[in-house]
């Protein structure tokens, strides 16, 4: 038998039909929806007069546009309220399970899927959100889709999809203290560019990946889209299974032991061939920060902004435009540069591990006076766990206010906007122009780097806060 990659194995077993010279009809095991990219899809069903084909396979949450304060009150923004109301109505009408606002299981779709046990190895998972790639950390084929495709899945539990090419990114070596999985993925993107994996589905492999927790793995898979990849996945292993064993329940799984035995087979064959094979050394990665307006424009925090773009093109209008927007110059160092905001949260770094890491640096310290911080848990469960572990209290003592869960300032659809011209060190995933509000200047970084910046009020190397005794490791 021809050897296959993990991606091939999952994909091929979900193809209902291959259209000659066309896309595959791919069966979807799990469909996540939220309030922003689903209403037009439900409208489509209504216009055709057809039901949701398999309502039990779709899970809904409200996360993108919701406020992170006073969630028990009616949403003030009328359009946002309308979207959330429409989601509630549609879920009720079509029999879809919804973890809406104020539900104890509510949260960002890519945080709650895994923590509620809906994301399982070997699945195909889609959602009308590009960071669906997050779920790949469990050994799934998970990717973002548009609203027309949301409609396809609601109508038939399938989508038409051309099979992407396969890339393997192998990471060997030991990570240094103070370097997180966020830095790993930002480093990879800085090396291959924001479009370096376009057309590919990535499998992450290697000893440095194998040592990471599930939360850290999710951060890497999450940002696969920021290198242009259709998605990213990792073979499930003991760390994956242990995460699943600790969940209070897993819907649809009665005998976890036998499922785990099946999931152990989810590996690329040793002689499987990838269309592209890249290798990186984890030992040379430092804490990373972005300086421009796409995630490929990143560098080690103690580095200088390059003099030219990746192609060596000094006068590239896109490169200059980007630095102008940020208020930076080629060759500039960013260490010590004053900042105004810190955002910790999002589907990239809004999990308990991220808040623990942030706490390790701020514990016993005070935030800098010039800093406004937005601390937003990824879900109600994360929020509850923070409370139980005393993190909310610890944050308060350091001068921070903890908000309620949601996507918040990552895309600033709600009121959590960074003002015009202000600098924000953000643990989110995109530093696009205006992403965090019109004119906002985003510097992507890890929770540790965000914590160091929150304490000093400047761009700071988090390793300054890390001693051998305080061995911050995630």
């Amino acid at each position, binding site marked *: 038998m021809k050897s296959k990659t993990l991606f091939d194995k999952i994909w091929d077993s979900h193809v209902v*039909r291959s259209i000659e*010279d*066309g896309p595959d009809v791919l069966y979807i095991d799990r469909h996540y929806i939220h309030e922003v*990219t689903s209403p037009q899809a439900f409208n489509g069903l209504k216009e055709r007069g057809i039901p949701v084909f398999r309502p039990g396979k779709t899970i809904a949450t409200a996360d993108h546009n919701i406020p992170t304060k006073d969630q028990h009150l009616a949403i003030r923004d009328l359009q946002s309220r309308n979207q959330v109301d429409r989601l509630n109505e549609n879920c009720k009408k079509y029999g879809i399970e919804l973890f809406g606002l104020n539900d104890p299981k509510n949260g960002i779709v890519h945080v709650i899927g895994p923590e509620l046990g809906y994301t399982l190895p070997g699945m195909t998972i889609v959602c009308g959100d590009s960071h669906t790639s997050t779920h790949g950390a469990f050994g799934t084929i998970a990717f973002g889709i548009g609203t027309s495709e949301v*409609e396809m899945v609601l109508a038939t539990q399938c989508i038409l999809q051309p099979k992407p090419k396969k890339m393997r990114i192998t990471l060997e070596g030991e990570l240094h203290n103070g370097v997180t999985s966020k830095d790993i993925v930002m480093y990879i993107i800085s090396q291959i560019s924001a479009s370096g994996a376009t057309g590919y589905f990535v499998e992450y492999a290697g000893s440095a990946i194998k040592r990471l927790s599930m939360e850290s793995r999710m951060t890497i898979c999450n940002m696969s889209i920021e290198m242009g990849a259709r998605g990213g996945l990792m073979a499930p292993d003991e760390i994956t299974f242990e995460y699943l064993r600790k969940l209070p329940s897993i819907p649809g799984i009665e005998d976890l032991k036998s499922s785990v035995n099946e999931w152990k*087979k989810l590996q690329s064959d040793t002689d499987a061939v990838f269309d592209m094979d890249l290798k990186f050394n984890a030992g040379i990665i430092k804490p990373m920060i972005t300086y421009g307006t*796409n995630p490929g424009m990143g560098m080690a925090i103690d580095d200088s902004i390059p003099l030219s773009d990746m192609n060596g093109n000094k006068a590239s209008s896109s490169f200059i435009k980007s630095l102008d927007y940020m208020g930076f110059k080629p060759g500039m160092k960013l260490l010590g540069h004053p900042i105004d905001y810190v955002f910790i949260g999002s589907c990239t770094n809004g999990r308990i591990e991220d808040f623990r890491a942030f706490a390790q640096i701020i514990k016993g310290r005070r935030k800098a006076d010039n800093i406004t911080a937005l601390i937003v848990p990824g879900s109600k469960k994360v929020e509850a766990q923070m409370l139980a572990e005393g993190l909310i209290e610890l944050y308060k003592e350091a001068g921070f206010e903890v908000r309620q869960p949601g996507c918040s300032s990552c*895309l600033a659809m709600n009121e959590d906007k960074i003002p015009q011209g202000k600098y924000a060190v953000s643990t989110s995933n995109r530093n696009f122009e205006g992403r965090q509000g*019109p004119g906002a200047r985003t510097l992507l970084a890890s929770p540790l780097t965000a914590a160091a910046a929150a304490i000093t009020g400047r761009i700071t190397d988090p390793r300054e806060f890390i001693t051998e005794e305080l061995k911050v490791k995630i």
Partner: protein
Amino acid sequence: MPKVKFDILESTCVPLPFENVDTDQIIPARFLSATSRQGFGDNLFRDWRYTKTGEKNGDFVLNNPAFGGKVLVAGKNFGSGSSREHAVWAIFDYGFRAVVSSFFADIFMNNALNNGLLPIVISDDLLKKLHGMIQKNPDTKVKIDLEKQTFTILSTGDSIRFDINPYKKECLLKGLDDIDFLLSMKSQITSFENHKILVK
């Protein structure tokens, strides 16, 4: 999803020669709160098109009366970032029917094809040349023939054959939609569910 036909298009072009134009630039998140597909064109490239105080930014190409047409000629890696189909709806709603680049982000490409907005990939060199020509002469016209899969710059006769998935081409030429196709397969899908093989 809408059923849109595409066959032949002859038009002047609107040039946007920046690389890595992401979907947050095409339509910022704060304009995604609508629950229908219409009206997004008003906010297409909102933060480039209007100043902070809401006036038209005269430097931006959509506000330059010299340029117009149904073909948006973009830069490399167009449509990266968020999966929001609203980006395609905004471009289409504004009046564009084709987008030309040397490289598109994957999800944008799928979304465009699902809405009758034709994404055409041409070489970096030809893209650069085309941008140069449009800047020099805003009346530069191109012709897109989907049946023949040709993209032609009319004044020079430069013509290339572009790639498109044959299934998608057929859908666009006939105005068919994926959901009708998938709905016609329901019994096959049910049978797949009943005989689903475990991943091996």
